[in-house]
């Protein structure tokens, strides 16, 4: 069973050396869909409506237990504004998972999902796993994107789908844990096929290089 390590600050947690795998995860999506709030809810279990807007890219670390393994997550929180794309897409390489987020009360952020998905395909490595998340599902009165549409789009893009609320703490942990599971599944699939091109340092993301040794005994 997954259990989150309790820590207010990534700082403290990150100094823990004892883990089996490290995954790099990116959160992307339009400006103000709630990426930073989502990350703070997950990493610090806190919510404030008053986060400052993210500039460039921010960073947090969290360790979880999953399938008897300690997994350290490096989570990169990106700025959503278009002008930052050049900077943020530079971080796509080496990411093993993406949380692509829109705001269920904002049509435009939903319409941009396709575009974000193209960005992922262009800049990340082929095996990167993506979850589509419709955030702010606590704001039912202001909803403009139905769950059905979210699900359909996710199916169409081949992503798994969650609706979540960073504010009310709905599906936040589940989203991250599911993403970790999907990454693990993909990893063991790759190992099963014993294709060196997959297990090796594909496209040279440095993190994947680092992942290589522990991959050898991956059992999740």
């Amino acid at each position, binding site marked *: 069973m997954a259990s989150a390590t309790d820590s207010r600050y990534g700082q403290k947690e990150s100094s823990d050396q004892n883990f089996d795998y490290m995954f790099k995860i990116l959160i992307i999506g339009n400006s103000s869909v709630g990426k930073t709030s989502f990350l703070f809810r997950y990493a610090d279990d806190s919510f404030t409506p*008053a986060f400052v*807007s993210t500039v460039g890219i921010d960073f*947090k670390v969290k360790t979880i237990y999953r399938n008897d393994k300690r997994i350290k997550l490096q989570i990169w929180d990106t700025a959503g*504004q278009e002008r930052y794309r050049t900077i943020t897409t530079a971080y796509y390489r080496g990411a093993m998972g993406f949380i692509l987020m829109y705001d269920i009360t904002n049509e435009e952020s939903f319409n941009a999902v396709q575009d974000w998905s193209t960005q992922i395909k262009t800049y990340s490595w082929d095996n990167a796993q993506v979850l589509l998340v419709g955030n702010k599902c606590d704001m039912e009165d202001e909803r403009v994107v139905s769950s059905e549409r979210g699900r359909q789009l996710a199916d169409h893009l081949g992503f798994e789908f969650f609706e979540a609320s960073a504010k009310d703490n709905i599906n936040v942990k589940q989203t991250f844990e599911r993403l970790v599971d999907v990454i693990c599944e993909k990893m063991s699939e790759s190992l099963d096929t014993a294709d060196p091109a997959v297990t090796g340092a594909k496209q040279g993301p440095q993190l994947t290089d680092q992942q290589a040794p522990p991959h050898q005994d991956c059992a999740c």
Partner: protein
Amino acid sequence: MCALVCGAHCPAAGRGSAPGESANACLFLLATEELRKLSWSGIPKPVRPMTWKLLSGYLPANAERRPATLQRKQKEYFAFVERYYDSRNDEAHQDTYRQIHIDIPRMSPEALILQPKVTEIFERILFIWAIRHPASGYVQGINDLVTPFFVVFICEHVEVDDVDAADISRVPPDVLCNVEADTFWCMSRLLDGIQDNYTFAQPGIQMKVKMLEELVSRIDEPVHRHLDQHEVRYLQFAFRWMNNLLMREVPLRCTVRLWDTYQVSPPCPAPPRPRAAPCARGRLPAERPRLCPSARSLPRAAEPEGFSRFHLYVCAAFLLRWRKDILEERDFQVRAQPDAPRRGVCQGLACGELLLFLQNLPTAHWDDEDVSLLLAEAYRLKFAFADAPNHYKK
């Protein structure tokens, strides 16, 4: 100092009241090198608003011309507002307006910014600036740059010490209008010098981050190598330093002190500019033509290069201020290394550790003295390295 004191006695000089004869003569001297020298080491709070307006070139040095200039600039700004602000919901501009609108509540100091009157002022200033500068438009981070000007200028008109606690709704509307226009023009002038930070692909920032890297590699090779070994990229922490001029890294009071100095070009230690330009691999930004034609009437106005060129050295000094903390990570790293198979993983972890530190530097307690030390060190670095591109270069 006399000049500055005179400035303090005539805060209303620009507001229509004719300054006295001696004050007039004294103020005329204000924008001379003397004022710039004095401002370098920090401007006393009572004269800061006036001094900033003079140093930024917004106010003419000649006190007699100030009331007319102010009136004209204020009129000009509100003519823009009248002409453009209604278009914020047009299709062409709605994205810009929306971005500004959602960013302002996500700023600090929250208690000030969230006052409806302040929010409106920031929205107007940013929107007008954005549509008059289509090459960059509004980019997140520009909003932060409004705050120091607004806070400094409003401080003249509120009685509380902590501007965050000020109730702006009690400031008379005409005064607030003046503060808004003054803020707009001073911010515009600052942005004229760093606009390539915010144009497509943000070339100004990319270049400055590269230059920072190059500079640090010459100034402090061990720190540079340490960052490199731990796979910390300069862009990961210094992007924000450039994009927001360190405003996200230090408390607002420190930014204000920093800008006292930024607004005066640092006294140039070495000979003429052309030779000062090349900096090893990167080139320092070329002297930009003045984008603001009104600047021509202000012959002694500061080049706002404190915000562009000198900022780089401040960033280098800022990074090296944490030298010990950064290098201490090495011991941590060495301890981690005996576990040979995991070596690569540990490196990645240390990267996280270092990056978390660099993205959350412990500056909450910083005061003027910390900034002064930082500036002194930055000045030293500039003196030693700016005009010596091969100094310590391998």
